């Protein structure tokens, strides 16, 4: 009998833990409240199912435990019952999936007015690049990385000249302005993760990934790396400061553009990859 009791306790305990425990997600600071709501829906449906299933099990174990002379009921199957259960489950699943897909379609379609911000990761620090006056980010390439061009910005690309380079410092963002975060890595996989923003995405060397969000409250938020990237993984931290419009502009003034940083530096031709000369053109 102990087992039936324990099963009940598990349900009660789990529910109580869920309700009473102090451990819950951090207050949201972006437009992705939708994600939280989907998560809550999922919690309700799955919670209900878990409770129902386990309690019913506990009841069976208690009610139909072995008694002398008792004999089990012989019932190979019941198509009707099984079809019903299948249908109900399908509904439950749909109830979770539908909102999920709906929100996902928003998650991957970036609004027109979003400003681009590039996050560049390398073992084990974060750097950033803002599009500058022309609002366009110049092309970049890991091959161009050098002491005076830490992010490998393409010096021959006019769009790149006025890009604001923020190396190994904090990122500032204006509140309530949608941003498209372009993610780039110079070495291995990393993942730009700010719990309060909910959104996250891996950064993959050799390609550029993205996500978008709108910061909804000012403050300082911690950046963590959420993709194993070597021994420094856990210590790869940074900070995003969401500012009011003024604070943001004042901060922006103090930043220097790519042109300024590499002013003396010669604008050399790109290093060709080993032996691509012949048929490349």
């Amino acid at each position, binding site marked *: 009998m102990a087992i039936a009791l324990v099963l009940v306790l598990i349900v009660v305990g789990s529910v109580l833990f869920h309700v009473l425990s102090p451990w819950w997600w951090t207050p949201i600071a972006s437009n992705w409240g939708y994600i939280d709501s989907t998560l809550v829906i999922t919690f309700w449906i799955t919670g209900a199912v878990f409770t129902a299933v386990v309690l019913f099990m506990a009841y069976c174990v208690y009610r139909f435990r072995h008694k002398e002379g008792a004999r089990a009921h012989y019932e190979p199957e019941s198509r009707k019952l099984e079809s019903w259960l299948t249908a109900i489950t399908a509904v439950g699943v749909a109830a979770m999936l539908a909102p999920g897909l709906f929100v996902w379609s928003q998650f991957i379609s970036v609004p027109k007015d979003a400003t681009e911000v590039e996050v560049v990761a390398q073992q084990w620090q974060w750097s950033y690049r803002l599009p500058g006056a022309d609002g366009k980010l110049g092309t970049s390439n890991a091959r161009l990385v050098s002491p005076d061009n830490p992010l490998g910005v393409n010096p021959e690309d006019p769009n790149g000249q006025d890009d604001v380079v923020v190396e190994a410092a904090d990122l500032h963002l204006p509140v309530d302005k949608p941003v498209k975060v372009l993610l780039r890595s110079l070495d291995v996989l990393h993942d730009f993760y700010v719990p309060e923003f909910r959104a996250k995405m891996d950064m993959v060397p050799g390609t550029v990934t993205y996500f978008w969000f709108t910061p909804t409250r000012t403050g300082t938020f911690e950046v963590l790396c959420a993709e194993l990237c070597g021994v420094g993984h856990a210590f790869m931290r940074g900070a995003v400061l969401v500012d009011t419009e003024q604070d943001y502009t004042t901060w922006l003034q103090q930043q220097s553009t790519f042109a300024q940083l590499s002013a003396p530096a010669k604008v050399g031709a790109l290093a060709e*990859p*080993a*032996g*691509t000369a*012949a*048929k*490349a053109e």
Partner: protein
Amino acid sequence: MADTTLGHADHEAQRPAGLSGVAADWASDQRAFKNVSWGKAMMWIFLLSDTFVFGCFLLAYMTARMSTTIPWPNPSEVFALNIGGSEVPLILIAIMTFVLISSSGTMAMAVNWGYRRDRKKTAALMLLTAALGATFVGMQAFEWTKLITEGVRPWENPWGAAQFGSSFFMITGFHGTHVTIGVIFLLIVARKVWRGDYDTGAPGFFTSRRGQYESVEIMGLYWHFVDLVWVFIFAFFYLW
């Protein structure tokens, strides 16, 4: 020590054909594949698994080729041979293809003669198959040396994307290994046929199970598969 009270096996009695046959076979007892021996079933399923191996290799090569921004060397130039002053595209590969196909032909006949219990013809054809297989590997080796002398390396090549060399050596190498293994086993089986192990049903060395001419067909299945894989490599690697 067969259960003699059972009389003769009933699976020779006509079984339904078509889809109802599929259902009947899967619903039957003892064997899902009627008239398919254990060895043959095992080889088929192994080949299915091997299909996934080569499938993944080719798919990886496809991804590399499609996602690189560096131009891909043009195979029909790379694999051209200079014959009589003129560059003949892919000629060596074409010959290799014909060699391998021929080996498949001889193998098929070996199987056939095997079932007619014709030791000499079977063994001879298998040896011929092995010889053709060896020729193929030889030409493969020639191909490799040629490319290597032209500066193709797994990590780089003079004409473009580095993945060209990597994929080439990996895929042809893996296929070549299959051919080589095939040749070895062809020789072993041929020897058994020649010695007449399959007529006397002499027990195998490790397995201590009685040999049968079916081994020839099973060997054949493997060999034809190797040929089959080459058909795809030829189309996807050389002709793309």
